């Protein structure tokens, strides 16, 4: 395995809606920023890979348009995934492992504001049994929360505590969209938006972008004083047919964590992509994270949730804290689909 690290991270100041910018205009400053931070030009990037969704952009092959943000010249080798940018990072990591590149630019973005996001996300479901019902993403997550509440796997108070802790942590995150939270008692007094979920249980709707640079070996050391090395990365999937599985669990997240070597040593920090409060508890259980692990110091997806970027942001947040010397070993999680169907786990380490 080649040593590959995250050496630069840039992201938007996330907002509910950015109507004055199109995708190219929103993404371009982030790409410029992620390269400028390491003094690199696009000609020093061997491979570019992005994650975005045509369903959100409202046109086919929308990522081709967004490539304008990378620049029209020189010609580049690039690819795209209709998934979170974390999966684009996985593809770039493979490309570097295969020896076809030493450096890569990876980005993920979306503008969810032009459409009705909970409705658009229903198009991720199968077109026979689930899709025709047009179930919105919040009501679907409510089924999972209810199953956990019924099973005694979580309480509404625990869910409110997760929301409170996340948005309080977001106060120190300059990129967060939602910062600060009323006390837990006040949260629990709020009405349900989709019983058993209250507003605080749900991630916000966000327009935003994130970009990272990957580099192998000496190139990583040249570009970063303390590269955040990818020590393990794996992604797994549970059945989309959630009526036939236990939705209080996400076995694929646990499997990916084992395959990524999470248990090979202690982790100090975890960034978990949990767009709903109860999902953080599922992920903590599947990853076996104890109370000593700092979870979502950025505020997590509950504080800013650009679809197709929120998972890559988790990688960037862990990498930044390792590069800053705050932690030595951390884990980042990304998810895709409904009810934590698909999960990607990355273990990151700094040199001691």
């Amino acid at each position, binding site marked *: 395995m080649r040593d590959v690290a995250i050496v630069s991270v840039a992201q*938007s*100041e996330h*907002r509910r809606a*950015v*109507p*004055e*910018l199109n995708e190219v*205009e*929103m993404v371009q*400053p982030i790409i410029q920023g992620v390269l400028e931070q390491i003094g690199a030009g696009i000609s020093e990037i061997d491979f570019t890979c992005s994650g975005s969704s045509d369903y959100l952009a*409202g046109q086919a092959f929308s990522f081709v348009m967004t490539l304008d943000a990378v620049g029209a010249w020189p010609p580049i080798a690039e690819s795209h995934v209709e998934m979170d940018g974390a999966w684009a990072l996985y593809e770039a990591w493979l490309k570097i492992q295969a020896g076809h590149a030493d450096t890569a630019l990876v980005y993920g973005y979306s503008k969810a504001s*032009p459409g*009705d996001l*909970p*409705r658009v996300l229903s*198009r991720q479901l199968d*077109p*026979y*049994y*689930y899709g*025709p*019902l*047009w*179930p*919105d993403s919040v*009501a*679907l*997550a*409510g*089924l*999972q*929360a*209810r*199953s956990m509440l*019924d099973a005694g796997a979580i309480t509404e108070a625990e869910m409110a505590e997760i929301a409170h802790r996340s948005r309080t942590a977001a106060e120190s995150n300059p990129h967060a969209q939602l910062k600060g939270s009323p006390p837990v008692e006040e949260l629990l007094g709020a009405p*349900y*938006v*989709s*019983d*058993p*979920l209250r507003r605080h249980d749900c991630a916000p709707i966000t327009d935003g972008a994130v970009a990272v640079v990957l580099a192998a070996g000496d190139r990583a050391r040249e570009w970063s004083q303390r590269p955040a090395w990818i020590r393990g990365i794996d992604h797994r999937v549970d*059945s989309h*047919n*959630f*009526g*036939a*599985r236990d*939705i209080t669990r996400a076995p694929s997240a646990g499997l990916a964590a084992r395959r990524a070597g999470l248990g090979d040593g202690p982790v100090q920090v975890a960034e978990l992509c949990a767009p709903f409060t109860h999902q953080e508890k599922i992920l903590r259980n599947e990853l076996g994270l104890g109370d000593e692990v700092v979870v979502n110091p950025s505020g997590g997806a509950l504080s800013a949730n650009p679809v197709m970027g929120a998972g890559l942001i988790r990688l960037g947040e862990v990498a930044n804290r390792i590069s800053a010397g705050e932690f030595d070993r951390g884990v980042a999680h990304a998810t895709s689909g409904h009810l934590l169907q698909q999960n990607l786990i990355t273990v990151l380490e700094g040199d001691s």
Partner: protein
Amino acid sequence: MAESPDAGEILRAPLTIGYDFQRTTGPVIGAFFTALAERRMLGIRDTGGRVVCPPVEYDPESGEPLTDMVEVGTEGTVRSWSWVSRVREGQPLATPHALALIQLDGADTSMLHVIDAADPSEVSTGARVRVRWAPESVDGFGNLVCFELAEGKG
């Protein structure tokens, strides 16, 4: 990120996207939809002996093709539910309702559908529900309008 130049200057236009192609349902999903038109519910037996409803073409564990269709009940038990307070275009009911995972009698798994109820206080996990059929037979999922609450507790 750049500040808004002037929100009033931003041009807006509606954009409606269609994805209107037809699908072939095949021997398993097609049989389920055909049975719905006859007001019957079908599941399929997997290699472990569980009845999966709605039926799937391949075993969830082994990936083996499945063929043993099994008739299940038109009543069932609520295994989980959430309340849809804001109804969206395309959903089966025009009024607020419950989205639910429903385990039909004779099935070992749950299907996703909606329950017509006036208020979330009427719905609970374990509640008994039954199919409400369309007044006149229509193709496919359309014949299954929704579920409604029935007597008893599962």
